[in-house]
């Protein structure tokens, strides 16, 4: 099976990969780009550990072919924050105790990031609904929701728009 070239941007950097059609974006990120922060928890789109942002919107990397993101802007957990430090979400997750085993954390962060990019002032209901597709087995979600609330209150406007 011959590989095809796909060009896209990941965390602000231009990337060009030779991929086989059946490779998912998740596999390309983890195995070709060594960005292992995005996780495989179920491979069927249910658990949310593989959530990344494509053009600012949350998708399941495990159910997205690498070839499907040609020309798009991908944001993974490794792309959160900047040279000056952590994204308010990351800081809030740490300070609020929202991280236990950490396996769901990157997916949660990306789902929350997607929410805040669109809705910088979410209600608690908005947050619960935005995170409804991300499964955590350790925390019971309470501190994760509190962390997103705190991050939202600290950053009145989205940090960067990626479209």
């Amino acid at each position, binding site marked *: 099976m011959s590989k095809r070239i796909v060009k896209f941007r990941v965390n602000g950097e231009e990337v060009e990969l030779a991929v086989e059609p059946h490779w998912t974006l998740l596999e390309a990120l983890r195995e070709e780009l060594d960005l292992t922060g995005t996780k495989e928890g*179920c491979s069927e789109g249910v658990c949310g*550990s593989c959530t990344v942002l494509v053009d600012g919107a949350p998708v399941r990397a495990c159910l997205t072919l690498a070839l499907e993101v040609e020309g798009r802007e991908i944001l993974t957990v490794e792309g959160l924050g900047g040279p000056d430090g952590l994204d308010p979400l990351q800081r809030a997750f740490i300070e609020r105790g*929202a991280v*236990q085993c*950490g*396996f769901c954390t990157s997916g949660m962060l990306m789902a929350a990031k997607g929410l805040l990019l669109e809705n910088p002032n979410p209600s608690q209901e908005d947050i619960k609904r935005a995170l409804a597709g991300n499964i955590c087995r350790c925390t*019971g979600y309470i501190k994760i929701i509190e962390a997103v609330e705190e991050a939202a209150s600290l950053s009145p406007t989205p940090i960067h728009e990626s479209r």
Partner: protein
Amino acid sequence: MPEYSYIGKRMPRIDSLAKVTGAAKYTADLKFPRMLVGKVLRSPLPHARILNIDASRALRLPGVKAVVTGKDTYGEKWGVFRYTQDQMFLPLDKVRYFGEEVAAVAATDEDTALEALELIKVDYEELPAVFDPMEAIAPGAPLIHDDFPQNINIHVHIEVGDVEGGFAKSYLVREDTFTAAEESYFQGEPYAVVARFDLDGNLEIWMPNAGPHMKAKPLSNALRIPLHKVHVRKIAIGGAFGGRSEISPADFICALLARKTGRPVKIVYTREENTVCTRQGHSMIATIKTGVDKTGRVLARDVTCYMDGGAYSSTGPIATSVPFLCMEQAYKMDSVRYNGYRIYTNKPIRGMIRVHGRAFACGVDTQLDMIAEELGMDPVEIRLVNAREAGEYTPTRSYVASCAMKETILKAAEKARWKEKWGKLPKWRGIGIGCNSVQTGFPMGIRGGSQAIIKFNEDGGATVISGVVDNGQGNDNMLVQIAAEELGLRPEDIQLVTADTEVTPLDPGAYSQVSTFIGGQAVRLAAQDARKKLFQIAARALEAHPDDLVARDRMIFVKGVPHKGLPIQKVIRMGLSQGISVAGEGSYWPKVDPKREWVQNPYGQMCEAFSFGTTIAEVEVDPETGKVKVLEVVAAQDVGFALNPLVLEGQFQGAVAMGGQGGMLTEYHFWDGGRVMNPTQLEYKVPLAIDMPRIHTIIVESVDPKGPYGAKEAGMSIAMSAAQAYSAAICNAIGVYLKDYPLTPEKILKAIREKEEAGEKTHQ
């Protein structure tokens, strides 16, 4: 109460940064040069003799580097205990459950490995299978293990006091049977193993584990290599919840493939494999007979439990005992009898799990509620009457040094506004209470203690070397907090070398709830030892007595005279220039009865401390659908001492989610013969953020005399009492006592309708 710098403080965990940046490496994230992909071929039959395995076509596929089968093993059976050795990691004789390992391949990439699996031809002779435990012990049932007649894997028998006499004296006796289907861990991280050998025959192996030393010894035995050549490495772990403690066939198989190919091998389980091919919880039938006096005090209790253990023993003796032990710790009882049967079936293997026996725990508490109703008491009252107190012995003769069970009951009841609500809630709203206790430790023989070593670095920092493992509950942070506190350093000055069997001393692991109590205590003692030696050096320089010195915030100074001090860094260098290298060593071994054994002698001091907890839940049931909306939960636990309230709150909340929200409302496995019909999170309904209620957490501190700073286990008890509270609240809301768990909408609606029909009948 002493003034601590870090102990008792809400401190963000040190491992959080790596996790929020994606830098933390879990087993599946590891990548080594020339690494091969391993895949396991599994049995598509629940019970069958293996006649022949032909891997020739697979071996000819380009990219396939090795295939292993039972023929590559030493043909030995393994077991957690000597008397439960029943499992070959790659069986030679027969397969006993759908999904059991039969062969494995290592190939250059995943597609090739998967293709190779399809080229391995296995000839089976299918055997009759049995899936129901009661059918499995009936005469004529197919025998799953030749050495275990009637398919009875474990029988735990405990008898204390005068049970029949107790019943005879009782004012009221009830017998009820409670049942629960099996549940599963669904850790965030699917199981994975990476293994590689070096040229000297040392094995390096990574996998999510609840005790690296518990993995190393059986690996050494199974591979027949010396223990010191097995290095189980530290890795970020995505949850355990009572699983991932003993060696797994995948560990062994991955090491075999690595040895055979001479290359690193990685095996990553699918979610389905993690559910079917590691461990699950036991399903259970619990018949509970309880006799009480007029005050509701339990005079005698007799419990018989049948547990579906699946195809192999795993930690059978422990899993069969723990539900009983939790009960006997939580409640007073002078006379009690327990018969616990763990039965083999041709189903996936069951093990210890955080909510140990829903049917048992919820059964005991539901029955207490039923008794209370008959006596005209309320559920809180009857629990206060029976609650364990400090200074008592459990029926199996463990002394309980610290216990604030009553305080947890009273505080939870107050926060939940029990008195305002009990019996006064509007129709379809209910409130319920659950109480439980968890042991801080199991009898572990020569692996029951932990040792820690602390070395100083020239720059004034320290490195803590400990076998304690972090599954996500915060154990790494706990060690740093303790070391920083005792050494007078800041948390950022502490480096950890942990959970690596090449370097770290023995430790019992996390699955018996002892990481803080034993592992943390060892680190504390090692730090105190190191500090003492530093003080000797500093005392001379400061012309003071070592006993008058204090270490705090990177300084050693005379108590009350902060300017008469020296930076720790300087003291270390002073020591070095005097030819004194300072290191500390400490170990902690709980004083338990060495003769106590799960089956042979289940009596004597089991561990040194027990945690106690109470959960109260308030729910609203939709009488048209049977669905439950959980309004509010109050979780109170006696943790001895809260080393880090921020971490504890997270543990309580997670426990409510797992034991209550999931464990009592939606989580169970259903079957098509030996096939789990819901192996993934789509159809196995773990709880979601959108369904979580308000949770109030109450930390109660009884300050245990043995625990470090008074701390005991804190991560498990609430999972059990939450299940009990949810169950009680639902029963209260609908006015029916339900006995089959979990309480799905179907069951709740059925009960509501049956009650209505019965009510209509009585009015006719």
